[in-house]
């Protein structure tokens, strides 16, 4: 009996920390939270917009059962609303506009009629209110002692094609509700953050004689040319320290993956297959994961940089066309149908190099551009379903997907 128990314990320990295992039943019930609006300034439209943003952020935290009723209250009342007496937590906030049109937000978190947390926020303009909402959710998550959701405050950079051969590069929050065009004019694609701090990015310019990789410093607006290649040139990944880039380029008409050293400006060809090799992603310091057509259809492979050993990573799906890597985990887009004449379905799948499991992360529609957060806690992606586009956030730990509708043109590429 002891042996069986020991084996059971060993089995459970082996898989306790594996994100490819899907938790389908959660034992705990989540604490309830209600939100009370005690704003004195701004019109109802703006107040409601802020309320919806905070509700969405609290939901994405996945640690509360969020009450969606928009309730009004007085900020200085010591008691919560009667309707909220049974709630484990009540978040009360007040929006105020100061003399310089800045938006000031004060919050109080009640637990059993006691204020257990309070904080004030300020942003120079009310149209960036969503950053305050994200910051409030971040702080509540910290207060509750949960693993960090620092990714909520990071910026997303994406490109969108506005008409043939013309695009824009846009900065946004993680829900893409805030959007600021940073580059327009010509065809500029594949933006990629150049560092952890998100102070600069790379992009491909297709407006000149040859595809050219450029670098933009967001702080001062300086644009620097890195290198050019005939055919195509894409920055697929930036190493953790920002010193190496994985580029897909084709100086001789053949798309392959190259490792570019930012300091020495030298590059080394990493793949030599005569078909298509693209989408290189660093996996640690000694390995890359990439998409190759070497089996006659696009699929995921890994290559060790010291021994040049190539390994097929996925044995499922007709066409696995894009991937993002964090630690030992790889999220990829799999085309589940290969019919030219019907609506194709693209789903996201998660694998780990440590196990043989595949976890399916989406079930319907066309799901593309998966990007891990820097800490691996969440995955961002674009979903197109029944003519509608949305940006999705997957919380792997909580097995939850959240969608935020997009009301503008198609995303060409995005980075987080």
């Amino acid at each position: 009996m002891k042996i069986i128990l020991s084996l059971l314990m060993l089995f459970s320990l082996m898989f306790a920390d594996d994100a490819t295992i899907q938790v389908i039943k959660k034992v705990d019930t989540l604490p309830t939270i209600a939100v009370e609006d005690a704003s004195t300034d701004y019109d109802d439209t703006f107040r409601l917009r802020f309320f919806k943003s905070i509700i969405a952020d609290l939901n994405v935290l996945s640690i509360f059962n969020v009450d969606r009723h928009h309730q009004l209250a007085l900020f200085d009342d010591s008691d919560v609303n009667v309707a909220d007496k049974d709630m484990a937590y009540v978040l009360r906030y007040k929006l105020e506009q100061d003399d310089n049109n800045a938006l000031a937000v004060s919050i109080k978190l009640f637990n059993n009629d006691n204020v257990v947390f309070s904080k004030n926020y300020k942003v120079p303009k009310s149209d960036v209110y969503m950053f305050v909402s994200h910051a409030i959710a971040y702080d509540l998550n910290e207060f509750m002692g949960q693993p960090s959701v620092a990714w909520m405050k990071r910026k997303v950079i994406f490109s969108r094609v506005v008409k043939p051969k013309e695009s824009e590069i846009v900065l946004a929050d993680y829900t893409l509700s805030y959007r600021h065009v940073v580059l327009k004019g010509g065809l500029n694609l594949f933006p990629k953050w150049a560092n952890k701090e998100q102070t600069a990015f790379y992009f491909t310019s297709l407006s000149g004689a040859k595809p050219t990789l450029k670098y933009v410093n967001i702080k001062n607006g300086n644009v620097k040319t890195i290198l050019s290649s005939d055919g195509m040139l894409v920055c697929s990944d930036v190493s953790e320290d920002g010193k190496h880039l994985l580029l897909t380029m084709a100086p001789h008409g053949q798309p392959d993956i190259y490792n570019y050293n930012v300091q020495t400006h030298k590059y080394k060809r990493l793949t030599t297959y005569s078909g298509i090799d693209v989408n290189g992603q660093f996996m640690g310091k000694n390995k890359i994961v990439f998409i190759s057509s070497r089996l006659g259809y696009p699929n995921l492979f890994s290559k060790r940089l010291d021994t040049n050993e190539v390994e097929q990573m996925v044995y499922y799906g007709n066409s696995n066309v894009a991937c993002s890597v964090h630690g030992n985990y790889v999220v990829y887009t799999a085309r589940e149908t290969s019919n030219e004449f019907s609506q194709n379905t693209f789903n996201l799948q998660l694998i780990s190099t440590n196990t043989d499991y595949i976890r399916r992360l989406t079930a319907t529609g066309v799901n593309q551009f998966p990007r891990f957060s820097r800490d691996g806690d969440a995955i961002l992606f674009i979903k197109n379903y029944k003519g509608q586009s949305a940006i999705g956030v997957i919380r792997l730990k909580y097995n939850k997907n959240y969608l935020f509708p997009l009301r503008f043109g198609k995303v060409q590429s995005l980075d987080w």
Partner: protein
Amino acid sequence: MKSIVLSGVVAALLVFSGCSSKEPAVDTQAANSAQATTEVQAPATETVSSENSVVDSSTNSVSMTADEIQSKLPTVYFAFDKYNITPDMQARIDAAAELGKEDVAKSLNVKLEGNCDEWGSDEYNFALGLKRANAVKKALVADGIDASRISMVSYGKSNPVCTEHTKECWAKNRRVNFKLLP
């Protein structure tokens, strides 16, 4: 017996004890929202002048002829997810190569623009567009056109001629265009 049940419960809890406990990397730069918003400044907009927009008046006659050749150059179409050239498309490339050997065309270069339909990830699509352009380049070289006169670019799915979601429309977008350069 009690201890066995308890051990079972402990084991079950461990199975369901969550997945990832990876240490998060906190981005200190984005630590407050006000800072995040102040960082969002507009860098200088890059304006790229359109190439080949200036035509020297002394080469007017050549440019007219070049325009005529440009108008006669074909579009080469491809099958879904493919970059091989079909026999009917080979005939179009042969005709283009003959045009490229005309006296007035000998001083001109050609840019092959590879394009794709809306399916697939963009990076893979860009490579597919490039392989299509490269297949046409190889066919032109086999027809006697000097490789140094040919440059290539892939636009992936960012240069569609048709934006409806129909099979006819997708077929029109899976193509290589010829663009003459002085």
